[in-house]
């Protein structure tokens, strides 16, 4: 920012900068400004709220069917102009990701390899990420981000993602064949798989003796006040669903009531619903905690004896993705970033740092044996077959969860 620090001039600068930007003409700017006030014209404003967008993968991308939203610019993929590929990449790249989610040297190695300056911003949670990426329906000014796979169909439908130019991403051939056609994005046209994980639970064997294998341990009154569940409604509901032999994607009201009933029994035994499972377990506050596989891997660096299990009665499996946003200011550099992260050694370095397995066949030879050889981080096929992915729910179905989750928490 320049040395002009009074807010009004900064706003002015931003406006000028933005108007100069090719993505918004003065006319469109005026149209939007004059839109303020008129009730009809509130539609584009309100459409901003499509952070709330949630669309089941099976729903056709007729997302703008609601008449009031039809004036939203580029709300469908077809309306999104694909960039004309320029031969040389841009000098900058804006990445929006979790903190500590890639290898320690990935950014500096990329900067050196391509002579591109990376601006790397972090978000505190996936909801902030989605709100930001959807605020202008084209990525909030970023080039690359890492959404969960479940978000992808809705992001594609709403025109937030750029269709990838695979000629810029030759390393896509490193992907394992079983990742070539994921249900959320057939053919990986808009996204590339990044990491995958399981959700099980971790415990401290010094406090909790014995080999735990099932979810029932999280209802064991012996450890009252020392147990934690993740602060994530879908993951928590899934645990109770597995215990009851129900689908973690159920939308049946009676089944959901059964699930909540079981969770109501658990709540008085819990110390907290945690966002901070790594810290709570390593510090000794939680003896047993619902946890993601990579989080457990992080726990073992400070508390090596910590155990983890993917319960036999079923568990959640998830993955996230690498995407380029439709409004990316630097689309070529962005796709170079994707390619770079699919490189065998870079991908392995990322996995070795965070402890989440990647879908990269070529990288496996470089992945640490402590990760690759550990069935808890890299489960055998028999376990994988039993894992269930959480599906995206329609707004009405998601409400059934949120309503019950809030009632449980309050």
């Amino acid at each position, binding site marked *: *920012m320049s040395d002009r*620090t*009074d*807010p009004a001039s*900064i*706003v002015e*600068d*931003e*406006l000028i900068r*933005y108007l100069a930007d090719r*993505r*918004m003409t003065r006319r469109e*700017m005026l149209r*939007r*400004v004059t*839109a*303020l006030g008129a009730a009809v014209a509130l539609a*584009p*404003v309100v*459409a*901003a*709220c499509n952070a709330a967008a949630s669309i089941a993968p099976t729903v056709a991308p007729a997302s703008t069917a609601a008449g009031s939203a039809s004036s939203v610019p580029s709300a469908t993929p077809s309306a999104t102009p694909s960039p004309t590929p320029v031969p040389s990449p841009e000098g900058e790249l*804006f990445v929006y990701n*979790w*903190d*500590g989610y890639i290898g320690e040297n990935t950014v500096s190695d990329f900067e050196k390899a391509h002579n591109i300056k990376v*601006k*790397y*911003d*972090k*978000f*505190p949670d996936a909801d*902030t990420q989605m*709100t*930001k990426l959807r*605020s*202008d329906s084209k990525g*909030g*000014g*970023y080039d690359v981000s890492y959404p969960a796979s479940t978000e992808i169909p809705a992001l594609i439908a709403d025109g937030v993602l750029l269709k990838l130019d695979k000629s810029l991403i030759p390393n896509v051939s490193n992907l394992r064949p079983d990742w070539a056609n994921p249900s959320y994005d057939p053919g990986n046209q808009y996204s590339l798989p990044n990491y995958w994980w399981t959700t099980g639970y971790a415990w401290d064997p010094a406090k909790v003796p014995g080999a735990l294998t099932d979810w029932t341990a999280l209802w064991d009154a012996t450890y009252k006040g020392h147990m934690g569940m993740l602060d994530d409604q879908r993951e928590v509901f899934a645990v109770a669903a597995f215990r009851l032999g129900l689908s973690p994607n159920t939308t049946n009201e009676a089944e959901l009531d059964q699930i909540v009933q079981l969770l109501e029994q658990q709540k008085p035994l819990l110390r907290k619903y945690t*966002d*901070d499972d*790594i*810290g709570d377990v*390593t*510090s*000794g506050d939680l003896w047993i905690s619902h946890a993601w596989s990579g*989080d457990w891997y*992080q726990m073992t*660096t*400070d*508390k090596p004896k910590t155990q983890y299990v993917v319960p036999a009665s079923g568990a959640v499996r998830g993955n996230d993705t690498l995407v380029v946003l439709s409004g990316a200011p630097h689309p070529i550099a962005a796709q170079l970033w994707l390619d770079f992260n699919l490189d065998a050694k870079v991908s392995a370095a990322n996995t070795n740092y965070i402890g989440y397995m990647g879908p990269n066949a070529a990288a496996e030879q470089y992945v640490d044996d402590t990760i690759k050889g550990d069935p808890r981080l890299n489960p055998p096929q028999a376990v994988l077959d039993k894992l269930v992915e959480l599906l995206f729910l329609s707004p009405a179905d998601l409400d059934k969860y949120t309503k019950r989750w809030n009632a449980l928490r309050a």
Partner: protein
Amino acid sequence: MDRGNRWLSAFAVVVYAFLFAPIVVLIIFSFNASRRNFVWLGFTTEWYPRLFANHDLLDALGVTLQVAAIAVVGSTILGSLLGLGLARLRFRGSGATETLILLPMVTPEIIMGISLLIFFSQLFGLNGSIGQIAIAHVTFCISYVAVTVRARAAGMDPRLEEAARDLGADAWGAFWHVTLPLIAPAVAAGAMLAFALSFDDLVITSFNTGVGSTTLPVAIYSAIKLGVSPQINAISTIIVAVVSIALFIAWRLGAFRPAPASLAIEDAPAS
């Protein structure tokens, strides 16, 4: 009174200890050998050199300080005027103005954050920047300054300004030489509150950051999942050290002469 004074002083020591206990702990943990900083794993000084190589964190501090500077100046001016106006003057709409001042304080942070995000993003096509964060911060700091200044100005003797006028001062002179010095402590207190609010805000800011405008609280909160690196303790330690030394020097140089303590007429500065 002396005995009361002693009890009060002892109580004050306890309260100051309470205020500084976490600061002492965070300073100690800036020397922790654990990357995640949940448990003490041994002594190291490695985080300080690593901090100076960590541009992300230093940039975040820079953004935070820039935003705070704008927020403090902007909200202190606007808020002080509002507080003074409400306390001293009767005008049509003062009730509505008072309600308007309370409104930002009662607005849930997430609503304010999201409303500003929609406002800037949809109407102006802005994607978050230092300026956008600063505007948001000025907005929520104004109320705190106004309430603080109003508390001091309420019941301030209006005859003081009149006396100044009688002595030949014009309206501006009376304001500058009489009113302002009298409310100065409240203006300073309001500015300090505004700084604290701006420096610490997380929820509203996280919706208004953009490329390269991550603030320190957003950076810290983003780091919570993997454990906050001792580098963040190190940066806090350095800030506290720098501010303490600056304060000490300023104090030795006599920068903090007590502000006018009383509003009794005989104490008011002559115009």
